[in-house]
């Protein structure tokens, strides 16, 4: 079979969109049908279809891993890792990145039209799980004619998916790269998410999730949710270095409630710019899915049992300043992998960036991912 280039097959390429009949059996008991997918592919499948790297994005990420985001106009969110000469390289890999189920960049989510009513699902969208996201990805890969993954790669929530892949589809995954992730959401993780959800639901424009036709979106609530979450993505030392107690465009405190401090101004900017590109209901559904995530719980309380069937190689990476999913969570994963005799690598990398380090300039991360992927290739 000849090597397929993206142009040979309309299924492959940038800004792809497809609706599959399904049904997709969800953990909540609902069968979702049809299922919409927005995704991108980079590079070409090799002759024996063995070079696919699936990249799983994080909570507010999207399929534009290495191409320009259509709303923000910014370059792809992981161009440090994905691109020519990068560890994940379209010259060697067939790279797939799919907008996650429940999101708002073209895959099925609460903003999608409910075929039963002809109106957006809103809160009528079924509650989804990380496993549902992974099963949806598998459904799209079936459509793309890809049976096996050379690697599944993800950071944060993407790491939860990458970790779930070999557990749910032990025969389809040769390797998993799990970065700044966890095998379960802790009480603290759930608590922060609940703050965000309450902020959204307290916004009068939220209207029980039925705001799509109203012309007024719950932007204030979503912005606060983003601000609270954003704090958890940064390290205390990083915030101190970047902002300290410095004042924003003024010489003295205002004795009022403007954004006196630079850090306030920064957070407000993060919140305001986020609402332009993200749907509040999607934020509710995806944070819920993350809160429900406990890979051990799905296997009788034993995380090791989750990996009993797989022969995949694992690469687990944590960052020393990540307090959202601290190194202890990655160690927990690695101990379970060791207990099953899985081929596992683990390293805690040093970075000042906190949880967000996986998206930022950490040369050691590229080195580690590159070495791991190269070893997967014949």
């Amino acid at each position, binding site marked *: 079979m000849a090597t397929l280039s993206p142009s040979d097959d309309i299924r492959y390429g940038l800004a792809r969109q497809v609706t599959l009949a399904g049904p997709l059996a969800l953990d909540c008991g609902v069968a979702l049908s049809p299922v919409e997918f927005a995704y991108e592919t980079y590079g070409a499948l090799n002759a024996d279809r063995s070079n696919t790297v699936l990249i799983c994005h994080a909570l507010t990420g999207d399929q534009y891993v290495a191409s320009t985001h259509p709303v923000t106009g910014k370059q792809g969110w992981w161009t440090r890792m994905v691109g020519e000469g990068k560890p994940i390289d379209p010259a060697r890999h067939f790279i797939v990145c799919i907008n996650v189920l429940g999101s708002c960049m073209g895959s099925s989510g609460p903003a999608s039209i409910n075929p039963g009513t002809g109106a957006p699902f809103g809160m009528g969208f079924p509650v989804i799980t990380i496993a549902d996201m992974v099963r949806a990805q598998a459904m799209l890969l079936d459509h793309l004619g890809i049976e096996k993954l050379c690697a599944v790669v993800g950071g944060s929530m993407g790491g939860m998916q990458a970790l779930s892949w070999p557990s749910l589809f032990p025969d389809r995954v040769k390797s998993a790269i799990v970065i700044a992730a966890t095998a379960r959401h802790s009480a603290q993780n759930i608590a922060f998410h609940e703050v965000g959800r309450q902020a959204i639901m307290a916004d009068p424009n939220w209207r029980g999730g039925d705001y799509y036709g109203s012309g007024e979106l719950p932007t204030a609530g979503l912005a606060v949710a983003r601000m609270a979450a954003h704090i958890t993505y940064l390290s205390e030392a990083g915030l101190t270095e970047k902002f300290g107690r410095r004042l924003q465009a003024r010489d003295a405190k205002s004795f009022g409630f403007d954004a006196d401090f630079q850090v306030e101004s920064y957070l407000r900017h993060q919140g305001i710019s986020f609402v332009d590109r993200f749907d509040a209901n999607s934020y509710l559904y995806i944070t819920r899915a993350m809160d429900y995530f406990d890979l051990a719980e799905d296997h009788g309380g034993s995380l090791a049992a989750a990996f009993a069937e797989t022969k995949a190689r694992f690469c687990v990476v944590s960052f020393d300043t990540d307090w959202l999913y601290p190194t202890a969570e990655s160690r927990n994963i690695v101990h379970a992998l*060791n*207990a099953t005799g899985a081929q*596992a*690598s*683990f*390293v805690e990398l040093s970075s000042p960036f906190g949880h967000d380090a996986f998206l930022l300039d950490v040369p*050691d991360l590229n080195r580690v991912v590159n070495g791991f992927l190269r070893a997967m290739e014949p």
Partner: protein
Amino acid sequence: MILRPDLALIANNIAPGSRVLDVGCGDGALMSALRDERGADARGLEIDGENVAAAMARGLSVVQGDADTDLGYYQDDSFDYAILSQTLQTTKRPDLVIGHLLRIGRLAFVSFPNFAHWRVRTSLLWNGRMPVTRLLPVKWYETPNIHHLTIRDFRELVREKGYRIEGQWFLSGDRQTGSAKANLMAEHAVFLLRR
């Protein structure tokens, strides 16, 4: 690639295709050799992050962790060999670590610098100070080597625990030396133990 002499010795005495756990694997030099030359399924445990990253960049399966605390997570009999080279003297409880090695592996290679080597003895005798030698190059207050031992000490521990010595090699410089007067003449010892 040229392996350190004690590592070369270990590599040459590992059956092809074995499952090997290298505890304190450093940047993975021995693991690479075992994988590439002996077809071994090698895994590593290493405390230093930069070493782990270097080993991972070589495509090796290495976990960052501490021999004193993380060996307990490995299953019984999950490896043919467990290797601890030049690391025993840095552990908090060498006896417990060796116990883990022989629980996890059927066989264990343990190598360590011999603190009864004549250079160490004379240095201590004539200078009255903790020796700083080629194999033990760091001053007492900053050395990671917190449990110095001699070949006789090691043999005594093996006897107490009821392990069996399957093989023993002694090195002086880069050359092997005889087992007679090893505790005086060998800078460095490699033992192969069985439960």
